[in-house]
């Protein structure tokens, strides 16, 4: 998606601390862009009905806006989670861009908007624009999608490194691959037949795969969080354990 795939660089210290320190800011900026590129891109594309290249340019412009306009300095963790804050900032940015492009269409602007065939194809292929009141929810969905996509990529790399690519394929078939609407998820027995494994091997491999994927998801999540509190909060939200804890 968006044609841009960047590996998440290793992190040290919280993201917000590194972004505010001039010595570490460039690398932290790379980490921020790598972590949030996909959801921001997807959100801009859907929100404004943009084509691939326009959405990429605007995504880059958004991150420049975040850093160069000093928005990060105004982030207050007491008021909102980083992801929520970023989605609101993105919405405000998208609204401004929308107003600007409308003014240009009416002839009020001077900038030229490219309407090349490729871009038009992409626009036709893009999802329906998202209404403003659904923005936070939509951003969260895209954010989560990007998180799991990055984690799956990391998990694939780990499996290759361990010499166990079958483990990745097994997880993909068991939990990721879509099944027809009238079909059901493949049973362990079906997977054993398909992969030529014993039933116990399937359960063991899947157990290991899910455990390793979980570690990859948590790594990717940590890279997206500004500090430990943010990470703990996001982790609880992801695990669904942020409801009232009573026992």
């Amino acid at each position: 998606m968006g044609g841009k795939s960047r590996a998440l660089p290793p992190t040290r210290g919280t993201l917000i601390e590194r972004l505010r320190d001039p010595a570490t800011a460039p690398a932290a900026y790379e980490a921020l862009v790598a972590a949030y590129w996909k959801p921001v891109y997807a959100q801009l594309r859907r929100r404004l009905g943009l084509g691939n290249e326009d959405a990429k340019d605007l995504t880059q412009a958004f991150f420049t806006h975040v850093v160069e306009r000093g928005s990060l300095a105004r982030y207050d963790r007491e008021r909102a989670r980083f992801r929520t804050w970023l989605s609101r900032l993105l919405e405000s940015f998208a609204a401004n861009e929308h107003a600007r492009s409308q003014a240009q269409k009416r002839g009020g602007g001077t900038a030229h908007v490219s309407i090349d065939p490729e871009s038009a194809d992409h626009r036709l292929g893009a999802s329906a624009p998202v209404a403003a009141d659904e923005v936070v929810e939509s951003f969260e969905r895209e954010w989560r999608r990007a998180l799991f996509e990055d984690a799956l990529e990391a998990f694939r790399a780990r499996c290759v490194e361990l010499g166990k690519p079958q483990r990745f394929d097994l997880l993909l078939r068991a939990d990721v691959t879509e099944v027809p609407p009238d079909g059901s998820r493949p049973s362990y027995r079906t997977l054993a037949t398909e992969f030529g494994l014993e039933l116990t091997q399937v359960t063991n491999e899947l157990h290991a795969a899910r455990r390793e994927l979980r570690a990859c998801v948590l790594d990717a999540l940590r890279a997206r969080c500004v500090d430990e509190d943010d990470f703990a909060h996001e982790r609880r939200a992801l695990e669904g354990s942020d409801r009232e804890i009573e026992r």
Partner: protein
Amino acid sequence: MTLSDDAIDRLRRCLDGIEIPGGRYDVRERLGSGAMGTVWRATDRELGRDVAVKVLNDAFDMDRARTQLEREAKTLAGLEHPSIPPVHDVGRLADGRVFYVMKCVEGTTLAQWVRANPAPAERLRAFLKACDAVAFANERGVVHRDLKPSNLMLGRFGEVLVMDWGIATAPDLGERESSGRPRDDGGGGAGTPGYRAPEQRSGGPISPRVDVYALGGVLAFLDRGVDPVEGAALEISDRRLRAIVTRARSEDPTRRYASVAELAADVRRLLDREPVHAYREWPWERVARVVARNQFFVWLIVGYLVLRVCMFAFSSSR
């Protein structure tokens, strides 16, 4: 790779779920999480009933947490009481984490129940049921150490269940701890602020008076619906109840009720409008209490006197 919303949901579920070897238990949903473990609802396929499965969370010190959960299971298994959930099974997941299977309690915690504003007498009766279970455990050398409204559940039939015995002292540890040596299992300082006795905070000797202190906090919560704060004044309007809570929550353990049974007895006296041991009442308070306790006879006497006055007035007017 682009994931669909359904695929993301599936991945979230499979990351979150647990698999119990053997196929006897079909894990269905998460019921709740605490600092140490997570409780799941599962179906016991062999007996066709719902059970609760408690599993260790990923912890920094797995060995200690594993020991704690195993001890909790053994402690519970040794306490057969209607207000203590029975343990059915103990085992290990494929990843080595300990789990135990217990009765699945349907109901609400006392903390949730109080929000529905039940009558004061009803609250005290529920409290007494919890006291019975804790007193039962204390008599067998088990001290709960983490009593609080969210660990007390009200079942569907009005029964009260005492949950989460994760940091309870087992009988074989009781003697060692009463000697005053600090615990070596992470128990020192355990408990919940507001309900944790001073000796628990400082890692001192553990005795049933620790549970008396915590239950004093529960009693204060039941009156106000607010967690008590360590060292803060109690805002309880009923003087007798305030005296009971104050005595139960004395900083000095020797000034508290000697046992949960003694605390329960005083609460029962309060409920029955009898003089409570923790409070020395003034003569007029005694009169007011006696009147309140014998309302039927008092109204009978008042009615009789009114009747006599009316008869006297009637005969005088003739």
